[in-house]
């Protein structure tokens, strides 16, 4: 085991002082001189043809500087799935028809938000309403209205995954069961709404955009496609971001309309969504119908799994096609599945589109798989922890043509859980139950639908004469604490302190490309890039130190604790600061710079490394009201070498909070395409009093692909939370569910039904 100076040590946030003093600037807070405020006019119809738009009255309103509609845009379509042009299906402003309530049709720039708002009321849009379709199972019917004319039966994307011989395996199984689930949506609901400022430079034709994005590079490409500009002429800067959770990957109407309005007016334009727009017209979790069939041996060994999913895609693609693939992938984890078949369909419907949300593809899929495996265990008389142990993946496990698991700590995680449960949860109160769910998640995805020719992450380290370091990387801290991780890795590699490093993050003009903060990718992918950049500088410093020492190359040198010295003779060496001076002065003043990049190679289709673990939930059900109280959570996870235990714990706690929301109280009910609860009054987040205490255990492994062996810890625990809770509810009161959001009325109804059924049996 390596002795690290910084890696693995609890380290406070490098942005901490800024964030606790109110000095941290978010796009939402920014103003530029001479700035205008933009607002969007959105469709009140779920599906309608645009007959005409009259903006003349709005243009006359004093203070209004520009009004734009679809005809003022460069035309064409854009989207994140750039490699597959037919899936780039978004328009800047709808030109011929609107496809959901909230589809933007016009935008205004004015001297104040109030005036812009008033101008929206003066725009007259004539619509011809069209028949609309809201449910995926309706959308695929032959007579359903088409959301996009070129997509038959409203099928936006399909995925098929298969290995082994599924049909034969089912025949050989002792026990086969099929379950169907209807998994509901969830909004990322970040505290900072989508916010963008665009400033167009008249002379050069260049554009600068500040935005609350989770991927500056995706936004740069999205804007270039939408505006038909060279991407190098667009500079995206990500200030502090007030949360994203998967909802800020796509290029949304805020940034792109602000850009066009800025071009038209020659002034900076800011567009900020209000909370209602945030809830009703930004990306959300993918709702889906899911059928899952498993075949097991009597001893619980999984032989075959067959999964069919049809997702409610909404009006456009976003990252929804990736969700479709990932749902079909995560539903096999973390178990050895010798025979597997998956068919997934994503449908277009006349609603706000669904995309990626924390636990991308995993949350809904794992809910189904992890409640089902408990049902199978009950039927077969096997303990729920034991059935998971019997099927758990092991190091080197490979799903043919799909993925290979290099480091795999799931078995020791299960052992630890079993031990803790015996110690803590041997005696339960009346109507209390415990439930479990195992999980795995990617450390960044190996996907290139964005069609980038660049490495997946890049970083540059510049060492100054006084030994201070400027670290440049496009990686995005959206609250998860990656800025701290970047700096820790750079400091560890160079053997210097956190305080020696100034980070310059997330500016497409000054930093090397990184694909952004999604799929838990920054620690592994950007971590590797930062480590490589720092290692390049370290190599140069070691060369200088070696020359000074006059030693042969057989003597290894280390850089640690601000010194560079012979590894086996630590007293023989020099101060890091002196070596930096020598390196620069002795080399004609050549800048001391290191550049690093990372792209996964030969790591399959999914991810270079997988975090794993198991979660246990203890919950109590009130039989009178149906109210579920989550008492306590135990998590045992393998996230490789933890870089920052403080940050990793924060990620797990936050993931569980969002997972509990998915399990208990967050959903987005609609009526004819209208979201009925677009505010924090009606959309219920888990609050402080509902949050259980969490006991977290690390079972470290070393992943050969991760920086210092690190894997992800940001999203994995979102997925097991709700199914572990559902299993605990069954354990407590014996009711099970084919859906999430187990509000008291749902639980009470299930309890009443169970009671009635038991009475009926008694009478017979």
């Amino acid at each position: 085991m390596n002795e690290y100076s910084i890696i693995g040590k609890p380290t406070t946030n490098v942005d901490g002082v800024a964030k606790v003093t109110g000095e941290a600037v978010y796009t939402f807070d920014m103003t530029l001189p001479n700035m205008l405020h933009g607002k969007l006019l959105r469709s009140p119809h779920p599906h309608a043809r645009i007959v005409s738009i009259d903006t003349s009255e709005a243009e006359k309103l004093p203070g209004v500087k520009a009004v734009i509609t679809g005809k003022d845009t460069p035309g064409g379509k854009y989207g994140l799935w750039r490699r597959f042009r037919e899936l780039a299906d978004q328009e800047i402003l709808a030109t011929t028809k609107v496809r959901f309530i909230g589809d933007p049709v016009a935008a205004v720039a004015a001297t104040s938000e109030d005036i812009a708002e008033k101008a929206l009321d003066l725009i007259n849009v004539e619509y011809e309403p069209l028949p609309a379709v809201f449910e995926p199972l309706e959308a695929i019917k032959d007579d359903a209205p088409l959301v996009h004319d070129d997509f038959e039966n409203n099928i936006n994307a399909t995925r098929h995954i298969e290995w082994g011989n599924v049909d034969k395996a089912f025949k050989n199984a002792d026990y086969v069961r099929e379950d169907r689930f209807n998994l509901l949506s969830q909004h990322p609901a970040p505290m900072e709404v989508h916010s963008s400022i665009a400033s167009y430079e008249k002379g050069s034709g260049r554009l600068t955009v500040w935005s609350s994005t989770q991927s500056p590079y995706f936004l740069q490409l999205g804007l270039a496609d939408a505006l038909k500009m060279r991407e190098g002429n667009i500079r995206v800067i990500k200030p502090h971001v007030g949360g994203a959770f998967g909802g800020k990957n796509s290029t949304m109407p805020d940034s792109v309309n602000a850009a066009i309005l800025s071009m038209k007016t020659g002034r900076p334009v800011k567009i900020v969504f209000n909370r209602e727009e945030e809830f009703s017209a930004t990306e959300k979790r993918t709702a889906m119908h899911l059928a899952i069939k498993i075949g097991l041996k009597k001893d619980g060994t999984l032989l075959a799994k067959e999964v069919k999913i049809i997702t409610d895609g909404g009006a456009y693609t976003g990252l929804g096609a990736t969700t479709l693939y990932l749902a079909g992938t995560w539903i096999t984890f973390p178990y050895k599945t010798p025979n597997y078949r998956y068919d997934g369909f994503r449908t277009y419907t006349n609603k706000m589109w669904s995309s990626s949300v924390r636990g991308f593809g995993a949350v809904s899929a794992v809910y189904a798989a992890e409640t089902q495996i408990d049902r199978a265990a009950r039927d077969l008389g096997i303990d729920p922890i034991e059935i998971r142990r019997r099927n758990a993946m092991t190091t080197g496990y490979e799903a043919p043509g799909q993925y290979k698991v290099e480091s795999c700590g799931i078995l020791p995680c299960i052992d630890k859980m079993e031990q803790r449960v015996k110690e803590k949860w041997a005696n339960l109160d009346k109507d209390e139950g415990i439930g479990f769910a195992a999980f795995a998640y990617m450390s960044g995805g190996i996907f290139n639908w964005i069609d980038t020719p660049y490495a997946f992450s890049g970083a540059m380290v510049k060492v100054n004469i006084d030994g201070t370091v400027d670290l440049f990387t496009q990686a995005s801290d959206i609250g998860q604490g990656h800025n701290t991780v970047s700096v820790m890795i750079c400091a560890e590699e160079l053997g210097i302190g956190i305080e020696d490093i100034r980070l310059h993050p997330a500016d497409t003009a000054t930093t090397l490309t990184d694909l952004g903060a999604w799929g838990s990718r920054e620690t592994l992918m950007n971590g590797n890039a930062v480590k490589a950049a720092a290692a390049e500088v370290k190599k140069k410093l070691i060369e200088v130190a070696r020359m000074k020492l006059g030693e042969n190359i057989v003597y290894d040198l280390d850089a640690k604790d601000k010194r560079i010295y012979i590894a086996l003779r630590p007293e023989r060496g020099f101060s890091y600061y002196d070596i930096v001076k020598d390196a620069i002065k002795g080399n004609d003043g050549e800048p001391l710079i290191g550049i690093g990049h990372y792209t996964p190679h030969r790591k399959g289709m999914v991810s270079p490394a997988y975090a794993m673990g198991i979660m246990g939930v203890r919950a109590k059900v009130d039989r009178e009201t149906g109210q579920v109280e989550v008492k306590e959570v135990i998590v045992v996870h393998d996230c490789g070498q933890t870089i920052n235990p403080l940050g990793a714990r924060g990620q797990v706690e936050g993931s569980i909070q969002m997972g509990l929301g998915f399990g208990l109280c967050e959903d987005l009910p609609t009526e004819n395409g209208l979201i009925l609860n677009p505010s924090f009054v009606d959309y219920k987040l888990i609050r402080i009093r509902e949050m259980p205490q969490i006991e977290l255990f690390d079972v470290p492994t070393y992943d050969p692909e991760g920086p210092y062996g690190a894997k992800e810890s940001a999203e994995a625990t979102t997925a097991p939370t709700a199914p572990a809770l559902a299993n605990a509810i069954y354990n407590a009161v014996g009711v099970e569910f084919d859906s999430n959001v187990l509000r008291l009325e749902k639980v009470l109804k299930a309890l009443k039904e169970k009671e009635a059924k038991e009475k009926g049996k008694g009478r017979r």
Partner: protein
Amino acid sequence: MKKELKFVVNGESYDLWVEPNTLLVQVLRDELGLKGTKWSCDSGSCCACAVILDGRVVKSCSIFALQANGKEVLTIEGLANGPELHPIQQAFIDNWAFQCGFCTSGQIMAAKALLDENPKPTREEIQLAMDGHLCRCTGYNMISEAIQDAAKRLQA
């Protein structure tokens, strides 16, 4: 018609003219440039905008600026003593009690009001006082721990 607003913010006296329907959060952010106070939900239901008004924590999005006339407001910018952080701020840093930071100013101001009134709150008292302060990142437990830690620091 604009009316006069005389009040003290972070120890500084201000004399402004504001429209009667202007919210306190608007004056703080847009007139005084104190952007540390956030505005998130548009419905008075998240408490990201919390500030301390004459010793009590209030949602600055839910009161008119003129209601602060003659009163004293403390915002996140007024909490530190120059370069020296307030013990609550330091405890939030040391306990990783924030992630994105957007709700943090409101959380810290509510924690300040709580600890001024109840210097040794139990976990349940903290949860009661902080209920309604929405946070999407942290899962709250590390906020509760930071407030307990801050209480200890303030006792010392």
